[in-house]
């Protein structure tokens, strides 16, 4: 059913359709609307779940770790500082191979304190083993949450999935969203059936400690699971498209790149702005295009290299920076070209929109202009002069 709703409400509706049994979270802007909506759905009896208010994000993540390990589908959400406080637990959830789904309402990190959007928070978890999916708009937000459970719970994956959505821009932005029918979601997403769980009828030890004889194999198994996810994610997107009649998810998506000479690679809601800039540049006769990366972890290095290797000029535009080097996505993309063997393309990195700095079509056009100039790993776009 099509509804004109806020992004946070859309997340709550999508999560409800996945039938979670335990939800736990701690308030933080701009995530809070998501769990407020879920709390109301539970309070109204529209969602049969345990909604547990906790004293910190660390405990929110720990609580859903425990409920997932008991075999009950669970959910949490956070942003920014809450994400950083959760981080210890996030690594642990992935290492314990618990297929949890969470939302990261992307926000900057302190200091300075700033509540507005960028993607520096979720980037801190890129080495954690979590699968990270980035949404461009709220339809994708809905679709990715439903797909996320299916990807996470796949027997060849068994890794947690976070759906990253830009804070305020998506969480507080209202647009028309098609909320799927429950019967279709039930058919698409079978009930959660965790094999290694806490069950008094079949006692198992979870979270044992591993000495140097075993630790490396456990981490290697996580890497294999990530490799498997690169196959499972497009397969699930295909199944989704068949079941719901629209394309959503997958590894990445090109827009007007077939004959492009200049391509921007980016993540999240800014892709919408880039598409508009591309359309305008095309009218001026410039061959511009954009590649939207949906799956950031596992990084689809080989596929993305194959898709981009023939473009002469590539810009990575991202709302995060690995301080002391460049943008994390830039570094990943650059290394995928090195691994691919051919690096005739000019690849430059652009950091944009930190802490909610406005990104306009003009900022994007500036990127396309700079792309023809000297190849550089890092340029900040939209910095005040002087």
């Amino acid at each position, binding site marked *: 059913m099509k509804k004109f709703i806020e992004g946070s409400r859309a997340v709550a509706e999508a999560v409800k359709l996945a039938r979670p*049994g*335990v939800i*736990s979270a701690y308030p933080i802007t701009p995530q809070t609307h998501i769990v407020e909506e879920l709390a109301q759905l539970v309070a109204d009896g529209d969602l*049969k*779940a*345990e909604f*547990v*208010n*906790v*004293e*910190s994000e*660390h*405990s*929110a993540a*720990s*609580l*859903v*770790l*425990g*409920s*997932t*390990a*008991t*075999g*009950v589908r*669970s959910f949490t959400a956070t942003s920014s500082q809450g994400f950083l406080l959760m981080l*210890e*637990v996030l690594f*642990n959830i992935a290492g*314990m191979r618990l297929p949890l789904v969470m939302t990261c309402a992307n926000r900057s990190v302190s200091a300075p304190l700033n509540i507005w959007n960028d993607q520096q928070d979720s980037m801190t978890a890129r080495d954690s083993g979590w699968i990270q999916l980035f949404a461009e708009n709220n339809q994708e937000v809905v679709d990715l949450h439903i797909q996320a459970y299916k990807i996470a719970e796949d027997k060849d994956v068994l890794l947690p999935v976070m759906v990253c959505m830009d804070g305020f821009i998506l969480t507080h932005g209202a647009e028309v969203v098609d909320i799927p029918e429950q019967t279709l979601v039930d058919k698409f997403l079978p009930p959660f059936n965790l094999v290694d*769980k*806490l*069950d*008094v009828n*079949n*006692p*198992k*030890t*979870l*979270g*044992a*400690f*591993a*000495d140097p004889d*075993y630790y490396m194999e456990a981490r290697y198994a996580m890497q294999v699971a990530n490799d498997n996810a690169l196959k499972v994610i497009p397969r699930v997107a295909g199944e989704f498209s068949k079941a719901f009649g629209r394309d959503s998810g997958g590894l990445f998506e090109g827009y007007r790149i077939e004959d492009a000479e200049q391509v921007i690679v980016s993540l999240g809601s800014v892709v919408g702005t880039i598409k508009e800039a591309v359309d305008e540049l095309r009218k001026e006769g410039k061959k511009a295009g954009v590649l939207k990366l949906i799956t950031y972890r596992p990084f689809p290095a080989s596929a993305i290299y194959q898709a981009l290797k023939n473009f002469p000029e590539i810009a990575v535009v991202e709302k995060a920076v690995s301080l002391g080097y460049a943008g994390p996505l830039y570094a990943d993309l650059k290394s995928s070209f090195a691994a691919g063997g051919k690096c005739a393309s000019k690849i430059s990195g652009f950091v944009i929109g930190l802490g909610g700095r406005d990104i306009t079509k003009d900022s994007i056009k500036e990127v396309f202009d700079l792309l023809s100039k000297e190849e550089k790993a890092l340029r900040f776009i939209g910095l005040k002069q002087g």
Partner: protein
Amino acid sequence: MAEGIKTLFSPGHTACAGCGQAIAARLVVDTAGPNTIIANNTGCLEVFSTKYPETAWGVPWIHSLFENAAAVASGIESALKYLGIKEKVNVIAQAGDGGTADIGLQALSGMWERGHDILYVCYDNEAYMNTGVQRSGLTPFEANTSTSPAGKQSLGNLRPKKPMPEIAVAHGIPYVATASVGYPQDVQRKVKKALSIKGPKYIQIHVPCPLGWRHLPGLTFDIAKLAVETGLYPLIEYEDGKLTQVRELLRVKPVEEYLNPQGRFKHILNSPEAVKLIQQIADRNIEKYGLVETKA
């Protein structure tokens, strides 16, 4: 498991000889029985009982991190409630004193305040033993630990034990007790009683650590008993906020008897003033909890 021994905490784990925590943990799980799920903080108990691919545990058991067993257990309890089987399953969260009174206190406070039906057990061996005997919030006054060393300018740990049982009582939870591995039947009775009560419960069990306290492994029970008999570790029970039971002392022993066999107090034994300060702690406990029956 050795023939003839029926336990949910199998021998063969790697605890040190004379480990009080291993004995107490076995008492707790065997009293709780097979319909129990345990969440365990990081610490000695976790490390010596679950070295992959082996495990000592005969019940479902999970370890996540150092400070979050109370929150993980809250998630397990919530999941069991969702599944409609909470009434049939005990949930126990357990940790050492550092994991309870220091790094895990926030998560534990949250678990208490939310009213989860969980028994939290703190195995109190009075320092961070797993990392090499560093001081915790439950290290006793004047104990020599690796981060509260005795020296020319110091008598060891500068502060008394954090009053965890009272902090638990202040949360308004229905059952709080202290116990000692020196009194195994008392441990069993308290665990049984706690599990018969719905809501959050807290039991703090005093468990000597021969390595950290520097006493002979064969003295674990004797030293545990001496802590109680001197008044330094009162065995008390609170139900619904009221002190309902104390283990009375027939004959109060001087604290020297408890301190003497332990290397961690060796530096104060020749200082009557320093010993007196510990005696005062015992005397205050005796008065506060009425450990000695005074006939009118």
